[in-house]
């Protein structure tokens, strides 16, 4: 096996690579949060426990489908591109779902679940909101009561990637709502 100073230098290179991978992961999402376009997604309720990554509230959304784009060919489990526009209620809707990246406008990279009556049902990539461990169960309960009514997730989207910025119940953030409820 490798010995001596060569080993140390190779390890330094490996350490740089590991840090670069980590920072590039963070950079993409941080960039999306800083410069992405903001959309409101009306929520529908769905508190599983991920031991490795803490406690989170599982999110479901009312918008889960969009019309198949003209000329597009899609199959289940395929990656697709959902063009986003704002509905009458101020919440995001998918104006079309295509197999090609749209040339203009905001879009989200999604996965096709199934297609029915020319409507493409998709999995949305952001479906978790991590919270302080002791608040997550209460948040999940609150969400069950209010999601589908006035629960909203504010999401930043850029270049097809979306990051949940904040959860709202009515006009209050989830934390403000829980504090008030206490």
């Amino acid at each position, binding site marked *: *096996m490798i010995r001596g100073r060569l080993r*140390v230098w190779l390890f*330094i290179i*490996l350490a740089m690579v590991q840090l670069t991978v*980590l920072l590039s992961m963070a950079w993409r999402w941080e960039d999306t*949060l800083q410069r992405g376009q903001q959309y409101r997604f009306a929520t529908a309720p769905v508190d599983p426990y991920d031991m490795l990554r803490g406690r989170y509230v599982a999110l479901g959304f009312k918008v889960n489908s969009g019309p198949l784009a003209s000329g597009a060919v899609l199959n289940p489990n395929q990656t697709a591109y959902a063009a986003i526009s704002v509905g009458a209620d101020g919440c995001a809707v998918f104006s079309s779902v295509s197999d090609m990246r749209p040339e203009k406008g905001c879009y989200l990279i999604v996965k096709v679940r199934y297609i029915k009556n020319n409507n493409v049902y998709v999995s949305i990539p952001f479906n*978790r909101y991590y919270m*302080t461990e002791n608040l997550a169960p209460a948040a999940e309960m609150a969400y069950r009561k209010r999601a589908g009514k006035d629960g909203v997730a504010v999401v930043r989207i850029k270049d097809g990637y979306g*990051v949940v910025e904040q959860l709202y119940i009515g006009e209050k953030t989830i*934390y403000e709502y829980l504090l008030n409820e206490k």
Partner: protein
Amino acid sequence: MLEVLDIESEDSNVRREDMDNKAVKWLYGQLPELVEKGIIPPNSVELIQNYYGPVEEKGRHRTVLMIFSFIGAAMLGLGIILLLAHNWYQLSRLMRLGLSVGMLAGAQVLMGYILWREKTNLIWTEAAATFLIIMVGASMALVGQTYHLTDNFSTFMLTWLIMFLPVIYLTNASAAAVLYLAGVVIWSSAGYYDGSKQYIAWLLLAAVLPFYRYLLGQGRFTNRSVIVAWFLSVAVLINVGLFIGKHDIKIFTYSAFCALLFVIGSVWFDAKISLGRKPFKLIGLTGNILIIFILTFKDFWRWYFKRSPGDISSHEYIFVFVLLVLVIAIVLRYLKEKGITYLMFSAVPLIVGMGFMLQRSAIESSYIVMLLNLYMLVLSVSVINKGVKEGRLGILNAGMFMLALLVMVRFFDVGFSFVVRGFIFIIIGLCFLAANWVMFRRKRGGC
């Protein structure tokens, strides 16, 4: 004396690793008496001691220290993950990011320092490598948590594995290899095992083989080699099960793979040491005995073939074919040296395959079950015979246990009365006692 200890002709460092330290210590203890009685000349003492080298008094302590340092580093790393999983809302996003990068950088600095100081104790290297690996995963997890990411578990694990694979080769830490193999199994088992995942799993397993080869160069039966061999065998066995999806040939493939492990263990990893330090042989033997034992039940054949047989894909056929070719080639090459018991256990896939083919030919399942029971009986007797010939009580008892288990299970299968079963059990028990007493007397007489 050397013939009694059955040492192969290699350099003394390798011999030292292959032999139990206790045996050398015993030998050194005998030397004064042998010199006094004129059995060996006085100058032979120094020659023998130079040949085997010094006895490692602290060998066992070092192993214990290594295990505890591994556990300590793992607990420390996992404790940090759990603390972070509490999701410190008080910290801003950038602070959390800084924390995750800082944690990883800290673990890297520690590892780098240990590598820089080349003469560092292996225990510290193993502990630091373990800590680094866990910190790689923890920092990735914290970034995911900070940005509420929904990366699927499979992607997370694969990235983690690729990130820490080079750590194994740069640190030569067996703990890193063990964690890696466990990680590959977890990744393979998570989600659907299809498409490119099947082949990537094999590539990931193969990636650790050069490191295992390096460990073998230091000694086939050192603690590090043995531990990695255990994890490697189990990881490959689990992957074999995932790779062969179709039930029809799954058991047959398992038996072929266990036979391969057995022949590899018997040919290249055989020495007069405990079976626990020979994982290939132990897993191969246990696996195939279990398979044959399961196939001796009539209900198995009824249940197994009620399921509709799926189409077996070409890659599954090729895989099984390659396994069989390897087994046959190694068996034939070393048959003369290894003897009849070696052949009996290597032939398990042949018997299993014969059973499945007979079933497909619509032969009555009772005949197939009889064939397999007969084979299990022959195996047991062959093991008993080997134990008696070689004067090894452990092997004799293992053979008798196999036979007793077969007989007892058959008696629960069929409708014999309590009286008959009682008599048979008494006879088996008396046979056990008699065989052990005879062996014991023989050993005492031999001394």
